[in-house]
């Protein structure tokens, strides 16, 4: 059975998503959704993903609310920059941040957070040294960004994934 369903949970979620998005329980869609779920399971198996370890629901909840607040705040900040409000001179530039986070899923989550927050952009990450380079649209103080990223996000991500 393992060759048919190498990732039963992922396949089950795929089938559930398919039926949910089509809002139907018709036999035709169950067959189609099962095919998608099976193919998805095989594709995932071919990628050989490393095992994920996720803990601390409290930390996940805290991270979500933190990210939500930051996204709204930086949306407003970037909108002001685009509309030319604020007045002062703006400099953008790269910031290097040494990361202690090594878990690939944690890094993926961090990439989603950084790119989803307007004003910051994930540029590159060196897996050997753990050095992350981000681009900041409104760069005032590099040390400020380093502290924000490490203190706010990395600490919680380390709690969740390691």
């Amino acid at each position, binding site marked *: 059975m393992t060759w048919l369903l190498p990732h039963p949970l992922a396949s089950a979620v795929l089938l559930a998503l398919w039926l*949910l998005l089509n809002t139907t329980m018709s036999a035709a869609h169950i067959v189609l959704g099962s095919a998608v779920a099976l193919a998805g399971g095989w594709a995932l198996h071919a990628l050989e993903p490393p095992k994920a370890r996720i803990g601390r629901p409290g930390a996940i909840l805290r991270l979500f609310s933190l990210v939500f607040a930051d996204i709204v705040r930086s949306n407003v900040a970037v909108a002001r920059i685009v509309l030319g409000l604020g007045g002062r001179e703006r400099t953008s530039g790269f910031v290097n941040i040494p990361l202690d986070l090594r878990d690939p899923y944690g890094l993926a989550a961090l990439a989603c957070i950084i790119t989803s927050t307007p004003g910051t952009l*994930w540029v590159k990450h060196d897996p050997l040294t753990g050095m992350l380079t981000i681009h900041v649209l409104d760069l005032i103080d590099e040390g400020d960004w380093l502290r924000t990223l490490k203190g706010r996000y990395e600490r919680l991500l380390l709690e969740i994934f390691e």
Partner: protein
Amino acid sequence: MNRTADIPAWAEIVTAALVLLGATITLIGAFGLVRMKTFYARVHPPTLGTTLGTGCIAMASIVYFSVLQTRPVLHEVLLVLFVLVTTPVTLMLLVRAALFRDEAKSEAGEASSSAIE
């Protein structure tokens, strides 16, 4: 068929306000794409559309279809989640390409300047 008649006024107002807000935020983001000067600065503003812009329009959809009670409203939550999870892929690809181009350019510049010496 016009079904908006079945909707109470407050829901119409909330839906309209959220759609307008989401559209305005996305427009500001698109406007920023044109206004910013460098590539790296340019990539930032469109994120407005993929986060709060999408979020507001999804919220409008949730309010509208919750009041209509035609279907479960999990679609919108999934949609926002998919957008959030997939944007980094294209963004990183673009930035890496730009970085590669910049590095190639500066190397070519150094080579030509040393040739002059």
